[in-house]
C-alpha cells in the first residue's frame, strides 16, 4: 500500500479570507483505502480545507489558497467542483443534494444517466438521447450493493427516511467510476444509531475496495472506531495527528477545544456568583421546531442579573432556544418569566414582558437593510411600547416623532461607536460589526429585563468583537439586565459569562461555571457525559 505512495497529499495549505486567517500550514496525506478522521470545533477550518480540496468557487473568488495538493503524486489545482469530480474526488455534503421527486436510482445517476442514441441527436445534440432506464437501475443497484445497505432503487426521495437519503448521496459518489477519494461531511449527524452503524460498516467496505475516505464527524466514538488516522484541527492549524490506538476520546476532545486563554479574550473580571438571586427565567421541557436547530427537551433556570452562556456545536439546538422563547418558531413546553408564563408562538408576549433578543440571522431577521439606522433602532420600542409617537389633534392621531427618534438614534450611535455618516444612512451600507451594533441598540432601546444575544460576534472583525462584548458586559452591569448569550465560540462565552450551558442533540447536556476546565466543556459538547440528558449539573 505504502509502496504506491499516498493517493492524496496536501502540503502547507493556507487560506485567509479578507486578511482573516482561517488555515495555516496544514499537511496531510492519505493512502489508498485509508480512512482519515478529521475533527475540530466549528470554525476550526475543516470546511475551508474541504472547500479547497473540492475546488469550490468561494475559494478562488476570495483569492485562492497557499500550498500544494497532490493526487497520485501529480499536483492539481481545481477551478470548479466539476474538475474535482473529474479527478475522482467525491464529496457528500451535510445538506442533501437530492431531487425530491426522483427515485433513488435516478438520483444516483443524476446527470450521468445511461442513454441510448437516436437519430435526433444528430440535429439537437447529446441531450436528445433517450434514457436507458434498465441500465440506470442496474448501475444504482450495483452501487448500493457495494455499500451493502438496504435501499430500494425505485423509492422516491420524498418517501425515504433520512438515513436512506444519506445512503443515496453516498451511492451517487460510488457510482462515479473513478471516485478514489470520498469526503463525508458529518454523514452520521442525521442518522439514528443503527443507521449510523450500517453507514460505518459500508465505509469500511469502501475502504476495502481501495477508496480513500476523509470522514468528518463530531461523534468521536465513530472516529475512534473506524479511522486509520485522526487529524485534529484547531484555529486553522493541525494540532494533533495520531492513530486511534494511541489516543482516547478525552485526549482528542481536549485537543479540539484547548486553546491559549491569553489569546483574544482573556477573562478580566471576576466571576460573580448570582446563584442566590431570584430565578428570572425558568424553562421546562422546551421543544422548538427550528429547521437545523431543533430543540427537543430543554430545561434550564436563569438567575437575575447574570450573564448566562449557551454553547454547543452547530445544529445541536442552542439557537433554537432563544428563537423558540421569543416566538419565532413553533415551540412548546413551559417558559416562566418573573413568575408569569410566557405565551409561546407569539412574539408579542415575550416582548411585552420585557424580554428582547438579538438574533443570529442579522440580515434575515435582525435588520431592515433598506431602511435608515434610526428606524432599525427605534422600531421595536415604537411598536411594543408606543415610544417615539407624538399625538396630534388631541390624541386622535399619533405620528412618529422625528425629533425624539433622531435624538435616541444619535445617542446610540455615540454610545456604541457606530461608524456611519448619519442616522439616516441605510443599514445595508454599514459593515458587519456596525450592523451588529445597530441590532444591539434596537434591543437596548426597549430597555429589556432579559436579553438574548445569539452569535453576536459571528462574521465581524476582532475590534468590533471586543466592542460588542464590552458593551454587553457594561450593559449588564449598568442596568442589571440579565443577558443570555448564545455562541459557538466557547472561549468567547468563557470570557464574559458567569455560567455556561452546553446544548447537545436538542437538550441541555450540562451547566458549568465559566471557570471550569475547557476539557469539561469539550466532553459535554461531544455528548460524552452520562449524567442524564436533561441533567441540571449545577456546580
Amino acid at each position, binding site marked *: 500500500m505504502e509502496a504506491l505512495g499516498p493517493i492524496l497529499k496536501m502540503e502547507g495549505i493556507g487560506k485567509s479570507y479578507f486578511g482573516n486567517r482561517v488555515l495555516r500550514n496544514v499537511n496531510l496525506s492519505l493512502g489508498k483505502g485509508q480512512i482519515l478522521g478529521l475533527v475540530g470545533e466549528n470554525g476550526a477550518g475543516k470546511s475551508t480545507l474541504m472547500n479547497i480540496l473540492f475546488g469550490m468557487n468561494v475559494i478562488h473568488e476570495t483569492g485562492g489558497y497557499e500550498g500544494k495538493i497532490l493526487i497520485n503524486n501529480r499536483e492539481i489545482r481545481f477551478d470548479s*467542483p*466539476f474538475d474535482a*469530480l473529474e479527478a475522482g474526488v467525491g464529496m457528500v455534503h451535510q445538506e442533501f*443534494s*437530492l*431531487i*425530491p*421527486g*426522483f427515485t433513488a436510482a*435516478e438520483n444516483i445517476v*443524476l*446527470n450521468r*444517466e445511461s*442513454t441510448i442514441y437516436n437519430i435526433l441527436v444528430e440535429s439537437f445534440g*447529446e*441531450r*436528445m*438521447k*433517450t*434514457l436507458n*432506464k434498465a441500465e440506470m437501475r442496474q448501475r444504482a443497484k450495483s452501487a448500493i450493493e457495494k455499500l451493502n445497505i438496504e435501499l430500494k432503487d425505485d423509492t422516491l426521495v420524498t418517501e425515504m427516511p433520512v438515513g436512506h437519503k444519506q445512503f443515496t448521496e453516498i451511492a451517487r459518489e460510488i457510482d462515479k467510476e473513478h471516485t478514489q477519494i470520498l469526503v463525508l461531511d458529518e454523514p452520521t449527524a442525521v442518522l439514528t444509531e443503527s443507521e449510523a452503524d450500517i453507514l460505518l460498516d459500508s465505509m469500511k467496505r469502501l475502504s476495502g475496495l481501495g477508496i480513500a475516505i476523509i470522514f468528518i464527524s463530531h461523534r468521536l466514538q465513530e472516529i475512534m472506531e473506524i479511522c486509520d488516522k485522526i487529524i485534529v484541527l484547531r484555529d486553522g492549524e493541525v494540532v494533533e495527528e495520531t492513530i486511534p490506538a494511541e489516543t482516547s476520546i478525552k485526549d482528542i476532545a481536549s485537543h479540539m477545544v484547548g486553546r491559549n486563554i491569553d489569546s483574544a479574550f482573556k477573562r478580566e473580571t471576576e466571576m460573580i456568583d448570582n446563584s442566590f438571586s431570584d430565578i428570572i427565567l425558568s424553562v421546562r421541557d422546551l*421543544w422548538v*421546531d427550528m*429547521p437545523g436547530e*431543533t430543540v*427537543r427537551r430543554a430545561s434550564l433556570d436563569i438567575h437575575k442579573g447574570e450573564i448566562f452562556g449557551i454553547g454547543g456545536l452547530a445544529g445541536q439546538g442552542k439557537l433554537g432556544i432563544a428563537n423558540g422563547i421569543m416566538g419565532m418558531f*413553533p415551540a412548546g413546553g413551559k417558559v416562566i418569566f418573573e413568575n408569569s408564563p410566557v405565551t409561546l408562538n407569539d412574539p408579542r408576549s415575550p416582548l411585552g414582558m420585557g424580554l428582547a433578543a438579538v438574533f443570529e440571522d442579522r440580515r434575515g431577521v435582525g435588520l431592515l437593510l433598506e431602511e435608515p439606522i434610526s428606524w432599525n433602532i427605534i422600531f421595536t420600542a415604537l411598536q411594543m411600547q408606543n415610544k417615539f409617537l407624538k399625538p396630534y389633534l388631541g390624541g386622535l392621531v399619533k405620528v412618529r416623532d422625528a425629533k425624539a427618534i433622531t435624538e435616541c438614534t444619535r445617542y446610540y450611535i455615540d454610545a456604541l461607536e457606530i461608524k456611519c455618516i448619519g442616522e439616516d444612512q441605510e443599514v445595508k451600507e454599514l459593515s458587519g460589526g456596525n450592523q451588529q451594533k445597530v441590532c444591539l441598540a434596537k434591543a437596548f432601546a426597549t430597555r429589556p429585563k432579559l436579553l438574548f444575544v445569539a452569535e453576536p460576534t459571528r462574521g465581524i472583525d476582532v475590534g468590533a468583537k471586543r466592542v460588542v462584548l464590552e458593551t454587553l458586559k457594561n450593559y449588564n452591569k449598568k442596568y442589571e439586565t440579565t443577558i443570555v448569550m448564545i455562541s459557538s465560540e466557547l472561549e468567547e462565552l468563557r470570557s464574559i459569562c458567569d455560567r455556561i450551558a452546553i446544548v447537545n442533540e*436538542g437538550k441541555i447536556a450540562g451547566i458549568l461555571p465559566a471557570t471550569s476546565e475547557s476539557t469539561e466543556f469539550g466532553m459535554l459538547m461531544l455528548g460524552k457525559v452520562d449524567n442524564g440528558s436533561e441533567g441540571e449539573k449545577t456546580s
Partner: protein
Amino acid sequence: MSRKIFTRDNVQHFLISNAVPIIFILLSAFAIPVSKFSGQYLVQEMLVRLSRDSFLVLSLLIPIMAGMGLNFGMVLGAMAGEIGLILITDWNIMGIQGMVLAMIISTPLAVILGWMCGSILNRAKGREMVTSFILGFFMNGVYQLVVLYGFGKVVPIRNPQLLLSRGFGIRNVTNLEGIRKCLDNFIPLNIGGVSIPVATFLVIALFCLFVLWFKNTKLGQDMRAVGQDMDVARSAGIEVEKTRVISIVISTVLACYGQIIFLQNIGTMNTYNSHEQAGMFAIAALLVGGASVAKATIPNVFVGVVLFHLMFVVSPMAGKYLIGQAQLGEYFRVFVSYGIIAIALALHAWKRYKDKERARRSLRGNA
C-alpha cells in the same frame, strides 16, 4: 398522530387537489340538462373543440415539467403562428401546403421569441408566471406595432383584401378561407352524423407520443430535475438556465403550431385578439383538467378541454333558459374562465403552504 385524523387529512388532501375538476363536473351536470342541447350536438362540438384546442393546451406541459409554471408566454408562439398565417394568406398558398408552409415560416420566429421569453424569465426566477403574463401583453404591443404599422410598409403585402383601406396594416379580421379545415378534412370520416377530424387527432396523438418520449430523454430528465430543485440540478452539473430556456422555446414553438391548427379549424382570424384568447383559454382548460402549476399530465389536457368547453358551449343557453338572458351566460363563462384560473392559482399557493406545514409536522413527530 391518530389514524383517524390522518385519513381525514387524506380526504381533505384529495378534495383540495381535485377541487377544480370536481366543481366543473358538478356545474356541467347541472347545466347540460338545462341547456337542452342534444347529445349528438354536444359530442360533435366536443370533438371539434378537442381537435382545435388540445394542441395549444399540450404546449403548456413542458414548461410545467421544468418548474416554470403556466407559460403565459405561449401567446408569443401564437403570435408567431399568426404572422406565418398572414404571410401565406397574402401569397395565397392554399390547403395543407399553406398550413405546413405557415408552420415552417413561423418556426424560426417562434424560436427567437421563445429564447427571448426564456432569457427574461431566467431573470425573474420565482415569479415566472406574472412575468410571462406581462411579457405577453408587452409583446402584444410589439405585435401590433409590426402588424398594424409594419405590414404593408416594411413587409410587402400585395393582397389588398388583407390591408386596411389606408394601404398598410392588416385588417382586424383576416380570412383564412384558403386553409380552412384543410387538416380536419384531410382524412374525412363520418360516423352517425358526427364528423371526425381524423388527421388532426393523428397529429395530436403524435404529439402526445412526443411528450411521453421527451420525458424519457436526457433533456426531459434534466428538465424534471431543474423543475424540482434548481440548486441541486446545478450542483450536479446541469445547465439550469439553458435548460429552462429550451423548455420555453419548445413550448413557444408548439404553441405556434397549436395556434395554426386552431385557426385552420376556425377559418378566420381576429388579427389582434386571437392569440390573447388562445393563451387564456388554453391555461384555463388545463387547470380545469385538474393540472396544477407544478404538475400536469396528458389526461389533464383532454379532460380539461372537454370540461371547459362543455361549460363554454352550454352556459349561454343555460343562462337563456334559466334567466331568459343569453348575455348572462356569456358573462358567466367569462367569469368562469377567469375565476377558475384564480381559484386554481390560489389553491396551488395554498396547497404549497399546507404541504410545507405537513412536512413540518412530520419533522416534529420525529423529535
